[in-house]
């Protein structure tokens, strides 16, 4: 493994600018790691030429003195972002072979910023999952293994499992993820990396294959808080093609980074200290509290009284929206078409969708269709949206008394692949700490906090008020500096 692939985004950017290496060298190094890591199954499609072309352009730009924010930096692109001329599948058979004639706003912004694409990263199918076990293209295997010699294949988290595995294995220095109910934060926590879901509306959703429209947000995943700030600045911004896009200037988050938290208050939500909380998780949480105190913050207790209702509300709202968003996958205009003999139009729909969607996707479509159906709409959907309002009010009230909230990211370290597939409900409970911030649309990030007794990463989550990614990043930086998390997975692939 070349030393170049150990560098962070900031180190690549700055080292390249300083002339320490060429962009092509960087791209070649990561391309080599990518092609040597097929055992992880992190990529659905590899695009080494795209990375090299961007690298060559960066080298030219450097010579001409016209560098861009991410010149020289190759990244991975979650296969939920539509990329022109490059297969985009949402990890589903129903889109196998689909080649968009258009580019998502977020990915275009990254290419415009000078970044190159190493490939399309694997994910849970249609972003539905917490372990990357629902992909049509096979599971992503975490580069991490338990420390006791246990060789069980572990989940990298989901839905951005390809992104987290690839970064942790140094196949790319950074990647895009999307977070609907924790899909950036939870895989980041499982693989010992950093990821942030910004305020809802901060990044455009145009060209991102929709799962749950009122929850989906793109965000960066990388090795450090600084890297996330750099990436997020390139990804964020108002898009007139997205009606939910925030019309606000993009703050200079990297320049605003400061781990000095004097005068700041950190809220600890009492409802998250659940009975039976994993001892390692609790320990890392306590460490986090100590670190933030050390950084100058005052620690206060806050209450988010409706916390326990967040997951059930999410599992009504997200499937409901998904059941409608996925209606367009019908075999008429793109993607798979299954036309049995003698089938009429409606038969074609039913056969295509049955063949093309995986079981978890079908399960959520059925749930979503059910909760929206006549007679149940008020009891389920309307009720869930009211509870959602209450959750948002909980946070707003809590933020009257603190600047950021600190909590664990997940209730446990990574589990083994296959451990939870038979019990959807158990799988859903993985998102218990992550979902509340999604429902309220608030910025939230996960930073590595420590290791479990099995030697697996555990993450700490910082949640901030709407529009205050800076406070979240700063608290994250304070933890990062003190946690000294240097653990890496041993290369077995």
């Amino acid at each position, binding site marked *: 493994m070349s030393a170049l692939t150990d560098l962070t985004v900031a180190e690549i950017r700055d080292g390249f600018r300083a002339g320490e290496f060429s962009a092509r060298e960087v791209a070649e190094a990561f391309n080599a790691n990518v092609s040597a890591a097929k055992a992880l199954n992190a990529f659905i499609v590899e695009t080494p030429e795209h990375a090299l072309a961007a690298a060559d352009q960066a080298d030219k730009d450097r010579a001409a003195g016209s560098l861009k924010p991410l010149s020289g930096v190759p990244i991975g692109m979650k296969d939920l972002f539509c990329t022109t001329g490059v297969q985009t599948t949402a990890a589903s058979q129903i889109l196998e072979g689909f080649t968009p004639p258009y580019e998502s706003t977020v990915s275009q912004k990254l290419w415009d910023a000078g970044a190159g694409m190493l490939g399309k990263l694997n994910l849970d199918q249609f972003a539905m999952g917490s372990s990357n076990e629902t992909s049509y293209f096979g599971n992503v295997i975490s580069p991490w293994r338990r420390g006791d010699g246990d060789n069980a294949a572990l989940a990298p988290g989901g839905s951005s499992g390809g992104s987290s595995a690839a970064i942790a294995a140094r196949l790319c220095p950074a990647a895009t993820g999307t977070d609907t109910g924790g899909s950036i934060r939870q895989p980041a926590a499982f693989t010992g990396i950093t990821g942030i879901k910004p305020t809802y509306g901060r990044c455009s959703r145009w060209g991102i294959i929709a799962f749950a429209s*009122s929850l989906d947000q793109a965000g960066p995943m990388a090795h450090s808080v600084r890297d996330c700030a750099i990436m997020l600045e390139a990804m964020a911004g108002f898009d007139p093609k997205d009606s939910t896009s925030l019309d606000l200037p993009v703050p200079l988050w990297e320049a605003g980074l400061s781990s000095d938290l004097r005068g700041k208050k950190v809220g600890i939500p009492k409802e998250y200290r659940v009975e039976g909380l994993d001892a390692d998780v609790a320990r890392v949480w306590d460490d986090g509290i100590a670190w933030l105190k050390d950084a100058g913050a005052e620690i206060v207790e806050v209450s988010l009284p409706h916390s326990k*209702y967040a997951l*059930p509300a999410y599992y*009504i709202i997200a499937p409901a929206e998904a059941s409608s968003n996925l209606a367009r996958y019908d075999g008429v205009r793109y993607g798979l078409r299954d036309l049995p003999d003698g089938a009429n139009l409606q038969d074609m729909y039913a056969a295509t*969708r049955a063949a093309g969607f995986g079981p978890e996707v079908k399960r959520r479509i059925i749930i979503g269709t059910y909760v929206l159906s006549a007679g149940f709409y008020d009891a389920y959907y309307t009720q869930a949206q*009211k509870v959602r309002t209450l959750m*948002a009010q909980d946070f707003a009230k809590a933020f009257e008394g603190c600047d950021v909230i600190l909590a664990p990211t997940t209730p446990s370290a990574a589990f083994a692949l296959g451990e939870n597939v038979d019990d959807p409900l158990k799988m859903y409970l993985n998102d218990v700490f992550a979902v509340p911030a999604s429902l309220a649309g608030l910025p939230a990030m996960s930073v590595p906090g420590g290791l479990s007794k099995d030697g697996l990463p555990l993450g700490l989550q910082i949640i901030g008020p709407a529009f205050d990614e800076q406070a979240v990043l700063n608290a994250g930086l304070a933890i990062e500096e003190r946690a000294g998390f240097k653990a890496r997975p041993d290369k077995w692939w």
Partner: protein
Amino acid sequence: MSVDLTTVKKIASLARLAMSDDDAQALVPELNGILHWVEQLGEVDVTGVEPMTAVIPNTLRLRDDIVTDGDVRDKVLANAPQAEHGFFTVPKVIE
């Protein structure tokens, strides 16, 4: 509220998901488990609470009435499973 096989089949049909009786039957306990779990939302006192209509308070922007798009038939048809003479084609529908 709980579902039975008939309900699951009806919902699957509404969602255009062809499903064998066995698969539908397997979904029954799964769905009932999930539905039973989400039903705890009914415990919450939502008196006077409005359902959320905008995640982050924001108003709907109106765009100008100018033609800025279209005339991209090649792109629109590029991934079509079946297309002819500029149309998408589907099995014939009788109305």
